[in-house]
């Protein structure tokens, strides 16, 4: 019976979409055209009274907690044959995803009043609706064991999230949204192609790793590329540092906390993880992950916006997980440990990153500067930053500990060193984040109780996280102590420098714009587009000329009066010659047909 929760997990938020949108189909449109319907205060209040966004994630959370691992719900009539199921990976994913969505939902429902003031309700109704849509997609792809569910959820989530990114309507948000959408669609298309080839090879729509051993390189490349966009794999990460900061806070939290993680889930489901050694692809993936990490960190360091910094941090963390996945692909034997490690790491990062993004929002709006609330918020933020950096005694350390065996077993021994260096970098980045956040001027707004409470819950879970997996293993607690320590040290030094000699570091800040490579690519694209336009304009001109000619010729024939061309024919001598001539020919032909010699 509890298996039905798997359906409810994503169907419920879908059902909420319409009421949450606050669209009224029946109203007096005649007057509405003059006065915006949104300014109906009574209706506004009624709609705002229900925390639609917060309600969406509850069945999913219930499913994560109540549905046992191995619970299935086959719905063969639904879509192209839906099979909902919960394995261990999916359960953890569902749990942390639901938590982050819940916290973000509470924040959105109670705290977020974004958008320009002229039409707040309509905008927040739209936001709620798209928020719930993305949420439904996210849950569906997790609980669906068939690849149609995955793809449907993935697409639903990806497209709806566009609305979250552009929500505030600012030019930067629109630009970010555009980049996001283009890349997301490219990713979806590649994923589609990959999945088609996968089904063709595997012959099933619910592949187990064993079914996937025959997967060909093209399919693997498409799957990696398609999901790599979502994962922020360098160089497919361009959208990420633009979109995450542009979105309203709760949206950033889920974008960074849950959505980008589904790429990993997809890879774990659609690559022959643990079945087959794919050294080639594994090495490539490892290198790509490492590159992602090492590039994201320095770029993040020079950013001004705390949300951009968090976005780059997400990229870096995804890089780490991708590295581990690559290593697992090289050595299938590592799969049990590696997969568990990745999943836990993803969960920890999701919760912590969600918390951080929400925290930035709270820092901006909850309580006046210097208030007790703000102090508390800053404190929790520092804790979350430490957890993200993997400081000892935090969940970060515990999660990192789970990855250790894989990193240690890597063929390439230098990987450990690189990862350690990136740990230092992460610590620095978090320090930079705390620094920037600290200096944010808060604007107090009312009604922050529920968001803060939900955020607190999230932070508490981050704090409690290690106990769930590492209770009684002392080694766990101290993982990463050295690099984090170094990082904190460097950070302290940098802070000192910044405090004493601000000009020394200032040139570095803002050196690289968010979206880094995009700045290089755009001029190229623009040039291409212009060339294309010129070419098309020429083509059109030529075509137009041809058409014009044809038209003129046509008009020359039909434009002139028909006249009476048969006037000549009607003259008796002419007609007579024709008549007699035809008769003569007829006679000749008749005679010739029978003439001797003609048979």
């Amino acid at each position, binding site marked *: 019976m509890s298996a039905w929760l798997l359906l409810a997990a994503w169907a419920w938020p879908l059902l909420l979409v319409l009421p949450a949108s606050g669209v009224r189909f029946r109203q007096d449109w005649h007057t509405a055209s003059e006065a915006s319907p949104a300014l109906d205060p009574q209706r506004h209040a009624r709609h705002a009274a229900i925390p639609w966004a917060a309600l969406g994630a509850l069945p999913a959370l219930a499913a994560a907690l109540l549905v046992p691992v191995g619970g299935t719900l086959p719905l063969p009539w639904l879509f192209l044959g839906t099979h909902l199921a919960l394995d261990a990976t999916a359960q953890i994913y569902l749990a942390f995803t639901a938590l982050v969505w819940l916290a973000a939902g509470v924040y959105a429902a109670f705290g977020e009043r974004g958008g320009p003031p002229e039409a707040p309700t309509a905008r927040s109704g739209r936001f709620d609706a798209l928020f719930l849509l993305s949420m439904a997609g996210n849950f569906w792809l997790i609980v669906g064991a068939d690849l149609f569910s995955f793809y449907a959820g993935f697409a639903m989530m990806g497209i709806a999230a566009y609305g979250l990114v552009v929500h505030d309507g600012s030019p930067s948000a629109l630009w970010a949204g555009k980049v996001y959408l283009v890349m997301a669609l490219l990713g979806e298309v590649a994923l589609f192609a990959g999945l088609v080839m996968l089904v063709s090879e595997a012959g099933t729509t619910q592949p187990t790793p064993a079914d996937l051993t025959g997967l060909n390189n093209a399919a693997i490349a498409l799957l990696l590329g398609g999901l790599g966009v979502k994962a922020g794999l360098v160089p497919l990460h361009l959208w990420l540092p633009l979109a995450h900061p542009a979105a309203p806070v709760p949206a950033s939290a889920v974008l960074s906390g849950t959505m980008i993680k589904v790429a990993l889930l997809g890879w774990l489901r659609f690559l022959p993880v643990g079945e087959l050694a794919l050294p080639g692809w594994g090495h490539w993936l490892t290198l790509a992950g490492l590159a992602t990490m090492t590039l994201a960190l320095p770029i993040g360091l020079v950013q001004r916006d705390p949300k951009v910094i968090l976005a780059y941090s997400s990229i870096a963390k995804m890089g780490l997980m991708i590295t581990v996945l690559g290593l697992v692909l090289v050595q299938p034997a590592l799969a049990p440990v590696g997969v568990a490690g990745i999943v836990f790491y993803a969960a920890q990062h999701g919760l912590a990153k969600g918390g951080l993004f929400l925290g930035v929002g709270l820092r901006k709006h909850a309580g006046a500067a210097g208030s007790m609330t703000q102090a508390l918020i800053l404190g929790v933020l520092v804790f979350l930053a430490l957890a993200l950096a993997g400081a000892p005694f935090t969940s970060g350390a515990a999660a990192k500990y789970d990855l250790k065996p894989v990193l240690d077993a890597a063929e390439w021994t230098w990987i450990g060193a690189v990862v350690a260096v990136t740990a230092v970098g992460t610590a620095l980045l978090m320090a930079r984040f705390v620094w920037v956040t600290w200096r944010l001027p808060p604007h107090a707004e009312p009604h922050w109780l529920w968001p803060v409470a939900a955020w607190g819950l999230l932070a508490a879970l981050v704090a409690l996280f290690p106990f769930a997996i590492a209770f009684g293993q002392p080694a766990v607690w101290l993982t990463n102590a050295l690099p984090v320590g170094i990082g904190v040290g460097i950070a302290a030094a940098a802070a000192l420098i910044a405090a004493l000699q601000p000009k020394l570091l200032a040139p570095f800040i803002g050196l690289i714009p968010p979206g880094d490579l995009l700045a290089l690519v755009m001029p190229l694209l623009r040039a291409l587009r212009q060339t294309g336009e010129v070419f098309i304009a020429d083509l059109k001109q030529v075509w137009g000329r041809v058409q014009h000619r044809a038209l003129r010729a046509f008009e020359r024939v039909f434009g002139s009066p028909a006249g009476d061309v048969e006037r000549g024919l009607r003259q008796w*001598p002419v007609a007579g*010659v024709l008549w007699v*001539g035809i008769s003569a020919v007829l006679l000749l032909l008749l005679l010739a047909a029978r003439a001797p010699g003609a048979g």
Partner: protein
Amino acid sequence: MSADPGAARRRDLSLLLAVLLALLGVALTIIYFMALQAGAAPRLADLAYARLPGTGVQNPVTAVLLNYRAYDTLMELAVLLAALLGIWSLGPAAPGFQRSGAVLAGMVSWIVPLLIVTGGYLLWVGGYAPGGAFQAGALLGAAGVIVRLAGDPRAGLPAEAAQRWLLVLGVLVFTLVGLGLMVFGAGFLTYPPKLAKWLILAIEMAATVAIAVALAAAYVGGRPPGPEARPTAADEDAEPQPPASSPRPPVPGR
């Protein structure tokens, strides 16, 4: 060396036509010769003579015309009728000639009765010697022509209503006799030998009148002048229409 290219073309064409027609004529002549050469082609003459006693007439030509191929003759009368109706449809007759002088009038008063009598004779003699309805009708028609020339606008014919009846008389009697024979079981235009002579005579008489009236009326060359034939106002309007216009004047208010 005509300066007019049209005329030159016309001359060339008529030359070409002449050559073509000459060749055609030669070919036809040769072929006609061949047809004659082929010898004793079967002829209808023997049969026509053999069947003559049952036809009710003694003149073989009349037998062909009014018995063997009576249907042709019926239709031929219809052709004449059609031509006259066509002439009438073109409009009223042109105004008459001026009244004749005394000499002509005198001659007419002599010659017309003579023609009538001769016509009657030809009609009667057609039964056994050359002659018959057409010849008789032609003579009577000629009488009408003379009367017309003498200045009678109606060419001696009665008023329109009567004229119409006389005109259709030939075909009407012919057809009714034919149909009547069919009704009585003999078949269309199948005369019983006993009645043949009288039936043919009746037909011939009617035909003579019809032919005579038709020929005279044709000579008049239009609808008979008379109270019935006064053109209406609408008719007058309709006649002189520009080319390419409606056959019917647009009725006001439509």
